[in-house]
């Protein structure tokens, strides 16, 4: 393992039982929410995971946190496979891998004060000798996320804060344990554009100053473009393309990535383009197509795509990978 890889995910799968028959209780099919994800999270990098809703982004994060038990696969953190660890040993890992949730209105308990919310992880892990020490650490965490003076926030309750402040509190909760990895599930999608930048810059500074690796889940490619070092594109439970952000945006290989880039609205009326609308409806993870999972909507599908499930292979630059049969053949001109 190269030393800079913090979290190594290999062929991770999470399948849920789907419909049960009303009579026999028998199970029909599976929801393949995460279906063979392989991804490396590097030291102090900001990796954006982009995809449509239902593609399994959030399930992947919950699986990495050990909140959902994976069906198969490995997650290696510090030379140790953390899949299937006992709850006690997983709890030790959780100190090192923390998560920020999407909805700052829902992810903070409305009946607790900000101070108690931020200090709770310390109490859970017995990391501070007493209440005062916990309060002091909570204060420091609040200041780290830019809520100053921290004393003014300790005794407030979540409903007294703005959306941006709440999300900062949520980041403080994740930071107070001093994690190495931060999993952020759409941390800005519920916030106003005017405060998004603040949270994004905060995440960016955390990995710079503390060497925290951030896995940032988003559906918004333009946000990813601004802050991520690398972008991974997920489609129907699998990573279909991953690479350094400028490279993926400039020379996308997978037709899905290309379509995704073409539909992102650009805030400049002089750059109106014709978006490449994909035919068909977003796919259903119960019913994953045979062969390449993207072929039914793919504008450039080959006959082979219906039969062969393409692996993630090196294309173009140093670390640019894509799962497309077209990419293996000499790169033709895409329509």
């Amino acid at each position: 393992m190269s030393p800079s890889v913090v979290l190594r995910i290999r062929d991770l799968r999470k399948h849920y039982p789907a419909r049960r028959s009303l009579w026999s209780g028998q199970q029909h099919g599976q929801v393949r929410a995460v279906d063979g994800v392989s991804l490396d999270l590097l030291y102090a990098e900001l990796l954006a995971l982009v995809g449509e809703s239902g593609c399994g982004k959030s399930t992947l994060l919950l699986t990495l946190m050990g909140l959902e038990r994976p069906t198969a696969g490995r997650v290696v953190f510090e030379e140790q496979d953390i899949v299937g660890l006992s709850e006690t040993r997983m709890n030790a890992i959780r100190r090192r891998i923390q998560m920020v949730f999407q909805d700052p209105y829902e992810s903070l308990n409305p009946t607790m004060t900000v101070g108690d919310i931020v200090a709770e992880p310390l109490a859970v892990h017995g990391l501070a000798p007493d209440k005062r020490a916990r309060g002091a650490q909570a204060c420091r965490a609040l200041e780290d996320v830019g809520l100053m003076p921290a004393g003014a926030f300790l005794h407030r309750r979540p409903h007294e804060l703005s959306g941006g402040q709440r999300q900062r509190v949520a980041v403080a909760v994740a930071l107070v344990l001093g994690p190495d990895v931060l999993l952020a599930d759409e941390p800005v999608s519920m916030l106003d554009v005017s405060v998004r930048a603040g949270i994004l810059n905060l995440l960016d500074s955390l990995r710079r100053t503390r060497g925290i690796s951030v896995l940032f889940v988003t559906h918004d490619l333009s946000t990813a473009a601004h802050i991520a070092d690398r972008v991974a594109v997920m489609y129907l439970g699998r990573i279909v393309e991953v690479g350094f952000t400028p490279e993926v945006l400039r020379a996308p290989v997978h037709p899905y990535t290309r379509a995704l880039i073409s539909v992102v609205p650009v805030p400049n009326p002089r750059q109106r383009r014709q978006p490449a609308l994909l035919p068909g409806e977003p796919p259903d993870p119960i019913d994953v197509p045979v062969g390449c999972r993207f072929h039914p909507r793919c504008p450039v599908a080959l006959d082979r795509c219906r039969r062969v499930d393409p692996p993630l292979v090196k294309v173009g630059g140093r670390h640019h990978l894509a799962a497309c049969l077209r990419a293996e053949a000499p790169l033709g001109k895409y329509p």
Partner: protein
Amino acid sequence: MPRLNDVTDTFLWGGATDRDADPIRRALRHNRMALFGAALLTSAVAAAALAQWIAPYDPGATLQVTVEDVYAPPSAAHWLGTDDAGRDVLTNLIYGARVSLTVGFFASFISVFIGGAIGTVAGFFGGRAERVLMRFTDVVLVIPDLPLAIVLVALTRPGLINVIVVIGIVGWTGTARLVRSQTLSVKQRKFVLRARAVGASNLRILVRHIFPLVLPLIAVNTVLVMSLAILNESTLSFLGLSDPSRTSWGQMLNSAFTRGAMSAGAWWALVPPGAGIVWVVLGCSLLGYGLERVLNPRVASHHLSSAHPTSPKSAKTKRGHPHQTSPGTEFSEAPVVLDVRGASVDFTASGCPPLHAVEDVSFRLHCGEMLGVVGESGCGKTTLMLSLLRLLPTGGRIVSGEVRLSGRNLVAMGEKEMADLRWKEMAVVFQSAMSALNPIRTVGDQIAEAILRHEPRAKKIDGRVRELLDMVGIGPGRQHQYPHQYSGGMRQRAMIAMALACRPTVLFADEPTTALDVMVQAQILDVLDRLRRDLGLAVLLVTHDLGVVAEICDSVLVMYGGVVAEYADVDALFNRPRHPYTRELLRAFPDLSRPKAELVAIPGSPPSPNALPPGCRFAPRCPDASSRCHAEQPTLHILDGRHQVRCHLVESNSGVGSAHEPFRRT
């Protein structure tokens, strides 16, 4: 006072803004029903507690009973008369309250304890434990509780403790079901998941995260269970199943009935105990329901109500500044469909000064034009849109200005006329297409209904429905499908088809793509774009997404703090923004085509309508604000074409540095 944004949020979408904060105290303060119930209950408790001192006679004292004392009518000596044994009815009534309330209190405590424990375990742990416990609860629930209680009391010795225990253990099922469902719903909230992500134990999650949110509901439930327990106790003692050594209301009724009070015409032996029961049960019920109205959002009504019709007199024209735009570019030829001049919206609530949610908004919407209304949340975008449709929550209305739809002033229009116009001329598409479609009827049916509602004699409905669905890109095969068979994007397109059912001239779309993915968003925007080109539909698009605006709108209205900060053609707004707020918004917005540019947040948050700054509303957050900006409200300056800016700096022509130069990011 909550911010207006919160008020409308709660009204329109039942947002959980501050409902969770100390609910019981708020409930009591704002709810007369609960207060009245609490007063009834408190007086009964006081009477029971002070019985020794306030009762005129000693209940145990053996009186010299004479014939005149039996069923003596109310008199100065006996205010409520006497009963069959010559005892004072008032004294019995007061002492009877002790039994009722004691039984009610302890029995409900037992019920709620059992029910709460079962409900919590079932809701929190789920799985097999839940199945076993809830089936057991269901079985107990179908056994009628009163006959069961009668049998149980009759089998044991009728005494106070027995009655309490029996009533307690037959009355827990409702609590168990309630607590289970509440536990289940709290358990699914994200903060519980977050606590688990931190590594918190089950016990901790229960005690710190779930109980505090289940407790208010249990409190309400306890009050209601108590009233049932009191009724059950009265019934049991009326049937003679009570401790004979203690006077209770049921017992008083029992002896009055069996010992000829009816034939003696002694109503005073019957009415007071009955009234006592009603008093206490009513107190419990009112308190319980009053609390529930506040604590359980589904009970209180949150639905849209149309605003009060404004009398033409109150609709003064012009509060602000004249609107003299010479409409700019390509749309100057097209007819004006919607002409809004100086519209202001106030929210009034009793006891509060009116909130100026929207002030002096003017714009013109031409046939086939798409106008984007942008701004942060809480800036009045949605309020403006709803006010034009006269669909504001109660208390909100247009207080001045004119809204002309093809020449007719909507502000002065009667409610009935307005209701007729609403779907025919002005249609709406909301953000949540999921909840706006009826799940048990086919989409085609629902569109047909929309047509028939306004054109009862319409012909060839089926063909028209197919045509409408085709317009939004939904194939004819899907007409007879149900909403759940549609994807999110298709549902939103079906909503657009429904909005077009009566061939409106203006379409209002409130964040129509916010909950959808970019791929689906692109489809919806494509549909909207085609519609206004093909049908000449005028579209007012409320959104927070500047990218969407740049992509398809013709003109943009930037709202801040309830006023128009800037109104311009889309090219001018994005390339020559004149208001610092517009400029800052653009700097905060990520742009895929310029990934290197730094994103800059706007510090602070928009002002709330009850605390507007004295000067320019953006001054507290504005990087260019001068002392004048803080003191004096800027007027609306009209620049070239229909470019309007509400900013002092435009006058000096120096403030917004990039004026007249193509806008560039730092």
